[in-house]
């Protein structure tokens, strides 16, 4: 039996990798994948505690998070395509029309 803390630590590590990746990566698609990684870290915590408390709320939450993430991916990739059509690059450093 894997202890509960291991799940928590793993999910914290995954979440950190995702969050750091959002700041370090320069490609829109990679950033988006990092955000998905963060959501999966959340899912792991929820499932782990759902089985710890022996109830179903956490698993329900995971289903909903996955569905919403899919919808988000749909909108996000559509935006990426419309950006790519206009400027032929997905590098976020080159999106600098709007400045301070």
């Amino acid at each position, binding site marked *: 039996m894997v202890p509960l803390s291991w799940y*928590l630590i793993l*999910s914290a590590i995954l*979440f950190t990798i*995702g*969050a750091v990746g*959002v700041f370090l990566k320069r490609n*829109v698609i990679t*950033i*988006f994948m990092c*955000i998905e990684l*963060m*959501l999966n*870290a*959340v899912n792991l*915590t*929820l499932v782990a*505690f759902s089985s710890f*408390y022996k*109830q179903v*709320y*956490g698993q*329900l*939450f995971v289903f*909903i*998070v996955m569905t*919403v993430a899919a*919808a*988000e991916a749909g*909108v*996000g990739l*559509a*935006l*990426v395509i*419309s*950006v790519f*059509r*206009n*400027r032929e690059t997905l590098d*976020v450093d080159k*999106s600098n*029309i*709007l400045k*301070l």
Partner: protein
Amino acid sequence: MLAYFQAFPSLRDTLLLMPELQITLFACFALVLDVILPKEKKRLAARVSLLGVAFSAASIALLVYQYSDSLPQKAFYDMYVLDGFSLFFKALFLLAVALSIGVTIKYLDLEKEQTSEYYSLMLFSIAGMMFLTSSHDLISIYVSLELITLPVYVLVGYFKRIPKSNEASMKYFLLGAFSSGILLYGFSLLYALTGQTNIEAIAQIVPEIIKTGSATYLLLLAIILIAAGVLFKMAAVPFHSWAPDAYEGAPTSTTAFMSVAVKSASYVLLARLFFEALPSAGSVGSVPGWTQLLGVIAAVTMTIGNIAAATQTNLKRLLAYSSISHAGYLLLGAVAGNEVGYTGIAVYLVAYTVMNLGTFGVIISITRHDEGDAASSERNTGEHIKDLNGLVKKSPAIALMMLVFLLSLAGIPPTAGFMGKYLLFAGLIKNGTDWMTKLAVLGVINTVISFYYYSRLIRVMFIADLTEERPLTVGKSLQTVLLISALLTILIGIYPQPVIKISESAIKQFGNISDKASGVVPKLNND
């Protein structure tokens, strides 16, 4: 099997959902109209959307009539709750979307992009906000939050051939999705601590966690993550960097919609999560809780927003920074944590809705197009401060209304903005804690700074010479919106009692909880 059917949501539960269902239905209808209608008839969809808003408002009135004595009503396994708070904000969102639709009709005509799906996306977003006001469970809160933001990402990038609009929506999307992830991690930790997703159940368990002190730091981490997610949505410093870009790049009508409706929704989120689920965590034993956290953020947000706004030359960007500073003022009400402060938030959101939509309406009325440069990012769209030059000579009525809106934004009596700010600051002073009084003084200083850049706009409108000779073309819809906004702005300023009374009944439930809470606030008050 039988048990399943007995537990199935009854007709009464569905009736409670009527306002949201009607908006969703009309949103789908508008989407279908986009395919049916020929290009020159697309404006019909705006009328249909307004009809949907009217239906929804009527059913809210019916719900008030039927349940005003027996609130709160719970439905769908306590995931959905109908209380004074949710009814108040549903009505506010309907007002915001009705005015936004009026502004949008004119703007899409100008841009020659009149489509029905724009209205449909707006209605979907509003449906999400209305669900959010009634959400009483972390799961439904998360889903409604995403229902709010997903259509808005599309609305921001609506002009897909304009690079500015693209870039704005991409930035908004990436940061928005990132902040949702952070918020969700906070939710998962909260679930880990309590084993519950229901707001009320969490509110009962959290004080025990604080009392035993076993997992205080995990609770603090959850609070910080949730606060970060919420502050992202309301564009408070240090999570504000997306707002100026998204506001500037988006179509002006979307900016207007975002800056009022989505912003108000983030305060609904704040209220449900902090005032209702975590009131006892305002201060966690010896370590500071969310009251102090929000206090610091409010101070920084007001100051940075106002100072940055003072240096802007683009009108939309200026209003973006001004909306950041308004987010700071509104947080003051949450910091005060008493009934006056909460009432202040509600009143200020009403005032902010009318005055900000009015301001954007005026900006749209001065918007004009030079032919054939739609794809250029440097096109002149009447978004520069100098485009306001000598407005009073072209149209005294519009210049006067703009004056009312700007004075209200700056918080000068007798306007709605003054009443809102007065209540927010009064809440802090009534609380009486030393640092809160100082925060109120900082708020007043910020009001003075903000008057500097609003008065700059007033000056160019009334004193500068005309630089743009083409006449204004104000459509009927825009005229109506401007008139309603201006009248409400002045009316709430002169005779605020009805709005204050309704707001008080809306926040009553939170006021009681915060008085009972064992946070640092009431304790220091007794000293």
